[in-house]
């Protein structure tokens, strides 16, 4: 459903991602793993129009998206959950969720979508009137995923959902992602937590220096010798 071809881009003259090619299939979780500074987040930014100098092709359900502005990506059904749980801090939790339903065609189903979000993250319901900036990191992460769900997306791009969270919270976030995937949601997951990422995803790609160096079934990658040594710390 999502095809990326010959994608090259970066900041100014600096090329951060070099010649990226991959597909996302409907209903799968594809994870992107790799070391700090490998270009994982930059790649995600490129995939929703946030990178200014971009060459190549991004096709979503047959439509060419490369070169379109970020707000257009939202309208075709791609949600991008940024890293470090970026919420609108001085707006209430409810207002934050409503922002997810900003696209006009999504506004009829607000109540139904709110129920879906509360089912997944009951804690958000208790905090509806609170300013989002006063939530804990974990709650903010739940909120950003909730916002994405309010968009009723066909595809969710998730940037490091485990970053800076306690292990227990990471588990509950990942449980929620698993549930979403079982209900048919397609997810592209960027993670530094390689173990978690390989556990939840069906397929995975390893990025180093802005290039895909390994691509395949998560199970195979988990058993790959170098991955084991370098990223999972097992001999």
């Amino acid at each position: 459903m999502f095809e990326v071809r010959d994608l090259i881009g970066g900041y100014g003259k600096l090329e951060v991602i070099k010649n990226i090619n991959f597909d996302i299939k409907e209903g799968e979780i594809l994870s992107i793993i790799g070391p700090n500074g490998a270009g994982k987040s930059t790649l995600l930014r490129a995939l929703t129009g946030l990178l200014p100098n971009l060459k190549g092709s991004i096709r979503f359900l047959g439509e060419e998206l490369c070169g379109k502005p970020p707000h257009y990506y939202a309208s075709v059904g791609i949600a991008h959950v940024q890293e470090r749980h970026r919420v609108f801090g001085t707006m209430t939790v409810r207002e934050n969720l409503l922002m997810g339903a900003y696209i006009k065609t999504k506004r009829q189903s607000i109540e139904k979508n709110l129920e879906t979000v509360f089912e997944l993250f009951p804690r958000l319901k208790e905090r509806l009137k609170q300013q989002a900036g006063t939530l804990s990191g974990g709650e903010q992460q739940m909120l950003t995923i909730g916002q994405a769900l309010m968009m009723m997306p066909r595809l969710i791009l998730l940037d490091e959902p485990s970053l800076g969270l306690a292990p227990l919270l990471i588990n509950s976030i990942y449980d929620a992602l698993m549930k979403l995937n079982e209900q048919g949601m397609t997810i592209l997951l960027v993670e530094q937590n390689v173990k978690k990422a390989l556990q939840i995803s069906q397929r995975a790609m390893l990025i180093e220096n802005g290039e895909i160096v390994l691509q395949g079934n998560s199970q195979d990658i988990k058993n790959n010798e170098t991955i084991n040594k370098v990223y999972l710390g097992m001999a």
Partner: protein
Amino acid sequence: MIISIIINGLLIGCIYSLIAVGLTVIFGVMRIINMFHGDAVMLGMYSAYLLHEKYGISPYISPIITAPAFLVIGLAIYKILEPIPPKQREMSSLIITLGISFVTATLAMLIWTADYRTVNLSYSQEVFDIFGTRIGYPAFFSSAFSVILIIAFYFFMTKTFLGMSIRATAIDPVSASLFGVNVKVISMLTFGIGLVLAGVAGAILSPIFYIYPFVGSNFVIKAFTIVVLGGMGSVTGALIGGLLLGVSEALASTFLEYSMKDIIAFIIFLSVLIFKPSGILGGKSRV
């Protein structure tokens, strides 16, 4: 005595707040320091004056007619400012809008001369009593309209999708765009809405202030004081800041000398910048 001073201060403060609300929203969303804001107030005053003189339209009604013109002026000025890269916005916009401000005020002087003008309503001299304070009807109406508009604007910002997207853009334009907000359009619209508020404020205060071409510089300084006082980008802060400035001016002109009245704004401005640069609301409850 003291009560009547405070009441009068609050009345004027409401109008100051209305001017500042437009300014604070423009700054909050686009980081544009709009020195033209006072001249929009001036144009609002003149348009209300002219519509009243020529056609007998009340200055409390004429903004309905003139608001679209201010929206257009806002969009035009925004187009001039748009190419400035975000990092240079604050300084460049200050200089450009200051230039536009001088040109506008000078043109106003060429067209309407430097004469002081007043809008004379049939009830201009009539007063009523509250707590032993004599309040002129024009002052009361002007303040009441300002408060109604500020409350309406507050609900617009918190209860409508358009208002929420303006706030979201002010907080984090990148995130807002990922939810489908066209940040460019919203910025342009915000600038237009801010100038409409200034124009409306001008019309509303025309019955109680002298109208002359350079009157805008007076208001822009007060508006900036209020914005700094209330916290940049905060509507609630602008309301509180306006009331505080109105009351402190009223107190200063009574207990000090009348000429001290305008110094108060500068004293508040400097003290806030020195002691609490984030404003009284600390930039926290930004609406």
